[in-house]
């Protein structure tokens, strides 16, 4: 696990850096820093699930789904993720940012969020050992 884990970490950090590069480039090329909100949105996206997953696991440890706080966390997560994709589209639609900046920030945001998802999926087993 150690060698594969190291390779995974290096690959994921590389992808994360490319994602942030694309977002910052989409801001800096046209000196319009509104697409930076996309990076903030996607970084905040896993936060509701992470918070509310601890809410649900106390009472219903065997029942993994079926409690209200878990559903609320998933609902907010979906809202935040769709917000991250919709924000550049809306800004490009009303001519505040260029379409190229819109595409770059969407791709960058997708890379950042995909990195976060892949990281939490790849290292989930390590966390559960300590519970």
């Amino acid at each position, binding site marked *: 696990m150690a060698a594969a884990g190291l390779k995974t970490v290096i690959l994921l950090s590389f992808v994360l850096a490319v994602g942030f590069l694309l977002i910052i480039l989409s801001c800096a090329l046209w000196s319009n820093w509104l697409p930076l909100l996309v990076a903030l949105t996607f970084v905040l996206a896993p936060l509701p699930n992470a918070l509310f997953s601890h809410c649900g696991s106390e009472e219903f440890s065997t029942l993994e789904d079926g409690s209200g706080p878990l559903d609320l966390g998933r609902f907010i997560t979906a809202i935040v993720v769709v917000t991250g994709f919709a924000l550049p*589209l809306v*800004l490009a639609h*009303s001519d505040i940012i260029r379409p190229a900046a819109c595409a770059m920030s969407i791709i960058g945001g997708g890379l950042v969020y995909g990195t976060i998802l892949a990281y939490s999926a790849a290292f989930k087993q390590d966390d559960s050992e300590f519970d």
Partner: protein
Amino acid sequence: MSLPRADYDPRRVCVNPCPNLTLGVGRNKRTAGVYLAGALFAIAVWTFLDAAILSAHAKPAHDTEPVLVHVTFVDWVPGICSLLGMLVVNLIDKDRVRGEDGFGDSKAVWRARLFLFISFALMAGGLAGSVCVLILKYILNDYPEMYKYYGYCNVSQNIGFMLSAVVLWISQSSSGEYEYNLTI
């Protein structure tokens, strides 16, 4: 002679029961449904915000004529109504609405149904209000198509809220563990 109602369920509300919709994702039905509901909600919100931002940054086609119409507070009211209705629908405990005897008092069931009715009425009123705004503010005044887009966005926002509430309700009431379903 009518057919015997073999599968008569005394809990149901309508004579013709709605088909028992399932999302068909299998084991993670509830999770996928909640995610889908959140996505629909965000799409609805952003559809209207698109119109609002577009209106705030609207430039006239010619320099002489001003921008004819803007998104004002009137356009926000149906969405707020739908949002309140959706909030109350999801805050109600769904076991109360089914109204089984020996589970709480009958007043609680009555109140839960009243609040459910009010919240459904708020959501339907929001949808109707958005259609009203579309017709009265944009179509009857015969604005060009770029301004009618604001009204269409308003209607689709409220439809999105309603779809989100429906998906959330279905996915939360078809819980796999105990298999009880609320048949409306």
